[in-house]
């Protein structure tokens, strides 16, 4: 790669332009300018290498230029960020809730718990959906909120997201009965997932620990909720394992998406 392409790459990386069209437009415009500058240097008697150095030197600091571009395209970047993660959250909720529902149907049938079919009532399914949505929104909330703080990001994120959950519980109680304990459970699960994801590097360790933590937590809640027979406790544990494993998949996909797709566009914490 020549000096001009390196310069353009540096500027694009620092500019954090959200859309490919903008990136291509800026790259083409800067390339055109630098070629004009090189041609001028050649006319003045420089050879190709010197002309390239001349063009790069006259262009100025790539950090300065990319910082200015980042400022110009800030609003688009924020819009992209919100839309991208809004879609990701929605898709995650649908995927986790759908997967959990299928596993739950299968388990109830296979364990001979047909008398527990009330768990497929609209009310119960709504509370399960609220739980899954709460876990995923809580996880994403912590994922983004911690980036807003340079000092003590996780404790601050826990407080901010916790307050948001309290507010949500206050609002939702008018429409959904007993939403407070469900949101509290969801928040605790989101904290589990975030802490394990942050503390452990290897994905197998993350998977196992998240599955173990959420299964233990969910089974404990089930036992406190007067589940007595072994099959019922077993099914509850397996459903929570399903939720945990699928949430783990969401967490892994999110960190991959963030690293591969968004890190070029949102290189630092200031959106």
């Amino acid at each position, binding site marked *: 790669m020549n000096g001009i392409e390196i310069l353009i790459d540096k500027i694009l990386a620092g500019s954090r332009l959200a859309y490919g069209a903008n990136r291509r437009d*800026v790259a083409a415009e*800067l390339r055109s*300018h630098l070629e004009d*500058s090189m041609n001028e240097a050649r006319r003045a008697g420089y050879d190709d290498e010197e002309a390239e150095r001349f063009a790069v030197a006259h262009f*100025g*600091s790539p950090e*300065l230029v990319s910082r*200015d571009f980042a400022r*110009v395209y800030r609003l688009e970047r924020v819009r992209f960020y919100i839309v991208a993660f809004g879609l990701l959250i929605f898709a995650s909720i649908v995927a986790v809730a759908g997967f959990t529902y299928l596993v739950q149907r299968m388990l109830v049938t296979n364990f001979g718990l047909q008398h527990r079919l009330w768990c497929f009532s609209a009310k119960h399914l709504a509370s399960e959906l609220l739980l899954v949505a709460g876990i995923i929104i809580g996880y994403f909330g912590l994922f983004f909120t911690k980036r807003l703080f340079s000092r003590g990001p996780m404790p601050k994120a826990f407080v901010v997201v916790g307050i948001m959950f309290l507010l949500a519980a206050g609002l939702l109680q008018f429409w959904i009965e007993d939403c407070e304990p469900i949101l509290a459970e969801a928040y605790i699960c989101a904290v589990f997932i975030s802490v394990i994801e942050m503390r452990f590097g290897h994905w197998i360790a993350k998977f196992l620990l998240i599955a173990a933590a959420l299964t233990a937590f969910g089974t404990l809640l089930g036992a406190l909720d007067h589940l007595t027979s072994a099959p019922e406790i077993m099914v509850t544990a397996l459903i929570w394992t399903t939720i945990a494993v699928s949430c783990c998949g969401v967490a892994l996909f999110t960190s991959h998406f963030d690293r591969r797709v968004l890190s070029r566009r949102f290189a630092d914490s200031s959106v």
Partner: protein
Amino acid sequence: MYGYELIQEVQRLSGQAFEFNEGTLYPVLHQLERKGFLRSEWRIAENGRKRKYYSLTSKGRQQAEHEQEDWKHFTGAINLILTSAQQ
């Protein structure tokens, strides 16, 4: 005008008084375009190369006139101060 031409023109008209980092012009042009003061289009130049040309919109022309007026007032005021100080 395209960016490089604009820089050359500014330097020529100012008698090479302005020396600035050329790259810093482009974010400014993009900002002005987003505010509706400029419009841009890609054209193929005579040598076959693509270049992005900028032109003032009517809103941009009005803003430029307004800025010129402000600048005249400002420099007039500074000149008055300097003239008074010399007397």
